[in-house]
């Protein structure tokens, strides 16, 4: 059997009219009529993405201002010119993906999983190229502090991002949570790059980069938990016993 024949069979089956009773349509119309008033559409994608990048930059700068700009002061010009534009670029990509997750029917250019992989790989590449000190002094004790610092700054960045896009509607809340986490994680990495003066390659590659997957995973987990609790609540309301 050829594809054209299958096409024809499907076309014929699809052409059969599927009319709904007018009462059903009337019931739908009646249900929306009382609350029908003009609404303001969401702003363009670039405006919302720009807002998200600004939120990330603000969180990074505020975090570093509180802790000190020791990392930035120790960096040479090449390091500054590569690390911060890369972070802004990645934040723009993640911000744009977050906006697309919050608008139903918008074209997804990067899947959340690919964004996480691509973002982490890009950071690893930049750090591996720039930092060539291969000592591993106090690898775990110092590293854990950096990971926690980055993650603690990722939380407010992700929450502020969510707040900024609160008028949106995520058709897949777990994906949206993951992308919000990645975006927050990039703000956390921003804080670490501005603050942390430890330029040992292993430290930066492992602990600084790990903020992004950690925040992404936590973002997805939080979204999943919220959805699970909402589903459970709805089930209890419909079936109390």
């Amino acid at each position: 059997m050829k594809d054209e024949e299958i096409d024809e069979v499907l076309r014929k089956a699809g052409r059969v009219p599927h009319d709904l009773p007018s009462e059903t349509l009337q019931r739908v119309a009646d249900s929306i009529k009382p609350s029908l008033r003009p609404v303001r559409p969401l702003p363009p994608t670039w405006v919302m993405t720009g807002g998200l990048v600004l939120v990330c930059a603000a969180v990074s700068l505020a975090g570093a201002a509180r802790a000190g700009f020791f990392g930035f002061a120790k960096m040479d010009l090449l390091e500054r010119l590569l690390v911060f534009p890369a972070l802004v670029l990645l934040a723009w990509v993640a911000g744009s993906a977050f906006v697309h997750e919050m608008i139903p029917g918008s074209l997804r250019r990067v899947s959340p999983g690919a964004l996480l992989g691509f973002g982490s790989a890009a950071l690893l590449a930049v750090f591996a190229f720039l930092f060539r000190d291969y000592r591993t002094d106090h690898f775990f004790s110092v590293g854990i502090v950096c990971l926690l610092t980055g993650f603690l700054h990722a939380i407010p960045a992700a929450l502020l991002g969510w707040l900024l896009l609160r008028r949106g509607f995520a058709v897949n809340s777990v994906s949206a949570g993951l992308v919000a986490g990645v975006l927050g994680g990039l703000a956390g990495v921003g804080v670490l790059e501005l603050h942390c003066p430890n330029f040992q390659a292993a430290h930066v590659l492992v602990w600084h980069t790990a903020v992004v997957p950690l925040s992404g995973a936590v973002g997805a987990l939080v979204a999943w938990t919220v959805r699970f609790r909402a589903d459970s609540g709805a089930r209890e309301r419909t079936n109390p016993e």
Partner: protein
Amino acid sequence: MHPDSNLEILMARYQQGDFAAATDLIERISPQLHRFFLAQSLSRTDADDLLQETWLRIHRVRHTYRPGEPALPWFYAIARHVRVDHFRKSVRTTAGERQLEARFKDAANVLRESDHADGLEALLAPLSESQREVIQMLKVAGMSLEEVARATSSSVGSVKQKVHRAYKKLRETMSATRFRKGQGGGLS
């Protein structure tokens, strides 16, 4: 074509609070969405409920449609979300509820078989859920590959792959049906 018959224009007017545009959209989109739910192994009662639920959701988030963007993928993305929500809620049930649901599904299947044995739903029955939805969007709703990708939050490549697999399965099923019919014809 009258410009007002365009879905995108109707959607923009709906956002401005125009009830006539909202009614027009309901009349034009509802049969498609209802059929979409029916093709996803749902009973008529469930499809009615999900249609109502979808319109309430559409109404609540109508500001997320952006003028100039294709409207059909936006509608289908929300309908798909409502359907997935419905399935998730029904999958996470207790053992007793599961038994009840199995019985309900059997009844729904009997109802569907008798109602639409020769229809699109029966044709698409051998396909997986995701294959069914892309075939329905492409062949019944007449959406483009890009629009289906928008509605299903996936890439165009992934949609093409699903269509390819669905056609492979449909080819096998239809050829087998033809063969059986041919054999039956020979015997009678």
